[in-house]
């Protein structure tokens, strides 16, 4: 009769675990020639072999194949006809040579394309890195300058929950805007920062919304060192010379 104990013994044997104290029970089980067990054991061996599929396969060194074949000793090769042998050999060699040359040429072309692509990618990454360093330098110049000033901007109009701070340096003629809670915009719209000089808005640059609502944006060079106030509006992509859309952030100079 088949039992958990039988499954236990068969499992240990299938895994190749030394049976030790269980050896006698296992021998008895084999002697009984239980049909269920005879069916089960190969399946458990398959299951044990499945453990071998879990580890990463490894590519052998090319020499291993030759070593294996050399270790076999005398062998019989499958019978082949010898008629036209030399002709076949020549044709096969020529075909193989042609294929090798074609493959090598394709490989070289592919290699050149990959190198070109990598080169272009490296140039892009280098430009991006240089640009990022320049931006960080600028931020540092604004934020660490002795004349840095700060103004709070509150949510306005359609986005009452938005908040921002703008840091600007009259010496550096730049501002850095840090926002929170700005809503995403349609693809054809951008936010535009305005600096008020003499009571009039002057374009200070456009920026896109971030899904997080958090943005760190550096202004264009400010035309005047006397920034009276800042505001952000929603404008067509690329911005306009004068604000046309709703104001979403507006500074309160008296509170700053």
């Amino acid at each position, binding site marked *: 009769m088949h039992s958990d104990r039988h499954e236990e013994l068969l499992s240990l044997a*299938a895994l190749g675990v030394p049976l030790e104290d269980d050896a006698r029970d296992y021998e008895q089980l084999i002697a009984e020639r239980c049909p269920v067990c005879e069916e089960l054991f*190969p399946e458990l061996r398959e299951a044990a072999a499945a453990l*071998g599929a879990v580890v990463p396969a490894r590519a052998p060194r090319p020499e291993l194949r030759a070593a294996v074949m050399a270790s*076999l000793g005398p062998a019989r090769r499958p019978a082949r006809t010898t008629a036209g042998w030399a002709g076949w050999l020549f044709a096969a060699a020529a075909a193989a040579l042609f294929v090798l040359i074609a493959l090598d040429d394709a490989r070289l072309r592919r290699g050149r394309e990959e190198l070109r692509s990598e080169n272009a990618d490296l140039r892009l990454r280098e430009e991006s890195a240089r640009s990022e360093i320049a931006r960080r330098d600028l931020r540092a110049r604004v934020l660490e300058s002795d004349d840095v000033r700060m103004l709070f901007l509150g949510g306005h109009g359609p986005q009452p929950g938005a908040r921002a701070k703008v840091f600007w340096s009259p010496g550096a003629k730049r501002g850095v805007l840090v926002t929170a809670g700005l809503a995403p915009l349609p693809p054809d719209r951008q936010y535009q920062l305005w600096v008020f000089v003499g009571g009039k808005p002057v374009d200070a640059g456009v920026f896109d919304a971030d899904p997080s609502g958090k943005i760190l944006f550096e202004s264009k060079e400010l035309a005047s060192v006397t920034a009276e106030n800042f505001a952000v509006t929603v404008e067509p992509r690329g911005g306009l010379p004068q604000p046309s859309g709703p104001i979403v952030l507006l500074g309160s100079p008296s509170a700053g």
Partner: protein
Amino acid sequence: MEKSLERPDPAESDRALVAAMVARDADAVARLYDRHVSRLLGVAYRILGETGEAEEVVQEVFLYAWRAASSYDPFRGSVLAWLVVATRSRAIDRIRTRKSAVPSDERGRDPLAGLPAADDVEETTASRQWEKVCRGAVAELPEEQRRALELAFFEGLTHPEIAARTATPLGTVKTRIRLGLMKLRERVRPYSSREKNA
């Protein structure tokens, strides 16, 4: 049983190669080698942690398969299972005879370990599917069952040694091994290429 997926090496084909080996056809060994060497090398390396020794084991296994091809019994499992078990046994034998066993956590530090993994070796989609099934089946095992199976299969520990290593009663270790392997069997059986009526 209806087979829903073939192994990378359909059993008929593997068995045909073994039959050709019985007839002393060395080309059959070469083809069997090309099909399974990366899998067997992965198993040997996992156990031994050293590439050169793992390759020696694999070489021994193919020599064994060549010499003992007539002893292969399809009723006792597929050709791949036969080769995997043979690889595992020889690798474990080497571990046991080492004067100073390499701790398992230090394996994989050999200088030849930079040889490429076989992911880029040409394999059939069915091969990857079969491996995926096996990996999924092992991953779904409860941790303690998977651990017991790995200690037995890859470390070559006896069940009392597993009990000591995991601070678990011997009976519990045997139960975990039984339950774990039976679950694996259930999962991989539909994908097995072994055919009982061959």
